[in-house]
């Protein structure tokens, strides 16, 4: 049986590939972009430009992952890991009873976290595009909305951060719990993409990452976002000379 002590001693040949390279790059880049967005906000008004760049990164990443969840490799597909409420409840109940339940990719609760983070981070970055800090910085798409709408979206952007932070804390705690209670090293799996074979079942491993497709997709999304940002109307400058 795999324990914490010997999980790293299972021969590499008995690890199978579950996460493709694009999913792994996506995951860790998103971590960096989220932390970067937070840090650039704390650093102050002169770092706003970098804050926006972190936001652009989040948008491209989230959009990429959604498309990849439709055209990507086996365990990246939403179809394969998003479960209905009944199975999710059964999985949760099984956890509490200490039942061994193995899912090669995301388990049903993990699936909920994936969806929650994708939606909230996507919403967060999108709202930020229209923001106004009421000092001297505005988001790139500010010219599209009225000041009232912008301030509402900015308020959403400020408040939603705390919910996302809470979800991230829960996510980290869950990963730690997997390590401690289920002897599953998920961090190792999300870096190398490989999990011990006995935990994931027979033919569940993937053979290729289709990285070229992911690169093309990311490029297309980046260009689309750049076009949208560059064609946004200029915000009205202060007309009053007071």
């Amino acid at each position: 049986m795999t324990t914490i002590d010997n999980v790293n001693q299972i021969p590499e040949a008995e690890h199978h590939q579950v996460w493709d390279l694009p999913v792994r790059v996506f995951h860790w880049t998103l971590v960096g972009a989220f932390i970067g967005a937070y840090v650039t906000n704390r650093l102050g008004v002169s770092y706003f430009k970098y804050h926006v760049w972190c936001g652009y990164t989040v948008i491209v990443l989230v959009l990429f992952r959604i498309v990849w969840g439709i055209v990507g490799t086996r365990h990246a597909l939403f179809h394969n890991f998003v479960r209905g409420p009944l199975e999710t409840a059964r999985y949760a109940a099984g956890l509490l009873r200490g039942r061994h339940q193995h899912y090669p990719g995301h388990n049903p609760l993990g699936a909920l976290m994936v969806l929650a983070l994708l939606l909230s981070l996507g919403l967060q970055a999108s709202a930020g595009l229209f923001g106004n800090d009421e000092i001297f910085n505005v988001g790139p798409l500010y010219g599209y909305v009225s000041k009232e709408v912008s301030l509402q979206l900015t308020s959403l952007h400020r408040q939603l951060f705390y919910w996302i932070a809470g979800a991230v804390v829960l996510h980290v705690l869950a990963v730690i719990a997997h390590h401690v209670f289920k002897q599953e090293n998920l961090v190792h799996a999300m870096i190398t993409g490989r999990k011990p074979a006995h935990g994931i079942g027979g033919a569940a491993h993937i053979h290729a990452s289709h990285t070229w497709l992911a690169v093309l997709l990311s490029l297309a999304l980046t260009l689309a976002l750049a076009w949208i940002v560059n064609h946004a109307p200029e915000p009205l400058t202060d007309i009053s000379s007071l």
Partner: protein
Amino acid sequence: MSRTLTRAGRMSAVGAVLIFGASFAFSAGAQTAPAPEGTPPAVAPAPAPTPGPSPARQAIEARKAVFTLIGSNFRPLGNVVKGATPYDAADAQKRIARLAFLAELLNDAFPDVSNTGEPDTKTKAEAWTNRADFDKKLKEFQAHLATLGQVNATEKGATEAFKVAFTAVGQDCKGCHDTYKVK
């Protein structure tokens, strides 16, 4: 016998007419009689005062106006720092002078009565419970504006020193908002 008034009847009739006439004259005179000395001139009672904004509302609207003007004078300097508009010495001096004046107005802009919470004001109650820290931040804002004025007078351009001084003021805005303005 003819129905003529007896002597008593005649006297009664005359008396009734006299009394009636006198009371009529008397009441007529009473309506135009001058008021005795010392009474105030009779005027219609004053109408109820039209309801206007409460003192809290007035204070809140006033400080929102001050912040609006602070913003409209700060942003052009921000555009200069970002390189979007060229530096103009006269304009920069004018803007900074106005900002300094407006910042002084803020000293009186947060009376206790205006601590009414949302949705009237976006100032959090902490601005009054932590008044010492709030006032300290206000003083820093005013001090950094004074520094910006001095730097502008010596640099006369969008130099690094100007940008540093400008950013310090911007940080004061953000720092105070992050703590004392509703998100």
